[in-house]
């Protein structure tokens, strides 16, 4: 009889311990979620690096700068970058990780969208020119 009472008591203690552990685990999870949420909010509201606006180029010579024809890729003469230069032209691209998600159909789609866009811009420019000429004549 005494043995049975002890077993029941031990079982109850174990159950209590389990439920306390479960409560503590749940509380720890809530605290973790709260910490993550606070970190996320801090990250969202923080200010951008001041270096970004300092790096902005353009201004008065922008049109001339844009119009300049680009030159081809120049490999570095600097020996510190010579290792990189040695791997030009191999099989695996440095962009392979990105490219694996890009379907080949994008060439047709891109060419079509840009051709339509270019036609739209040309039409808009012609219209603006015609309007300006009309205003000028009247």
């Amino acid at each position, binding site marked *: 009889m005494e043995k049975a009472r002890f077993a029941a008591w031990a079982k109850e203690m174990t159950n209590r311990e389990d439920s306390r552990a479960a409560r503590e685990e749940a509380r720890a999870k809530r605290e973790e979620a709260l910490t993550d949420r606070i970190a996320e909010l801090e*990250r*969202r*509201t*923080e*200010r*951008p*690096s001041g*270096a*970004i*606006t300092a*790096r*902005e*180029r*353009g201004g008065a010579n922008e049109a001339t*700068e*844009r119009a*300049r*024809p*680009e*030159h*081809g*890729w*120049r*490999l*570095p003469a600097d020996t*510190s*970058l010579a*290792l*990189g230069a040695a*791997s*030009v*032209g*191999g*099989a*695996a*691209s*440095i*962009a*392979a*990780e*990105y*490219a694996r*998600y*890009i*379907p*080949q*159909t*994008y*060439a*047709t*789609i*891109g*060419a079509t*969208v*840009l*051709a339509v866009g*270019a*036609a739209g*811009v*040309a039409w808009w420019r012609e219209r603006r020119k015609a309007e300006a000429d009309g205003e000028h004549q009247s």
Partner: protein
Amino acid sequence: MGSINPKVEQATRDMLGQAIRGDLEDLAALIKSVGGEAYRQVLGLCLTAAAYVAVDVSSGWPTEADVREIARIIAEREKLIDLSQADVDAYLSDAVLGFRPLEEALGDAEKAATLPLLITGSMLFRFRPEGLTWWEYLDQIWNASLTAETLDLSVIPALLIRARRAKQTRTD
């Protein structure tokens, strides 16, 4: 070891030049002429270059605030082509820095097939270092990316220390 195919690189450079000059008609013709496989790689290189520029101008891995600022500058300053801040933000945060597929990041195939060239071109032009043209900046990006491919990641702490030391020396 990673590499860059010179033919694909040349096509990428030509297309970025046309995007920067706003020559959309020529850009469309060039895309059509290079074909699907080459254009797939061109877009991959655009994503690689855009990632470099974003990290470079933010002086570290860009925060959400940094990405928003880059997107704001690109969308507000770009006059030759119409770019929305939301699209630039999605391109950078989800595709370029989040490594998600372009179509998933930008919402449709039309944007996914065109915006990488237009946005990356604009970023190269707008955020090139002082004294460099955008194509010299592109040289720097490819050369640095190829060099990085050959290095072990254990050099990162040493590079950070070197960068901080150089910055300190400049301010002294």
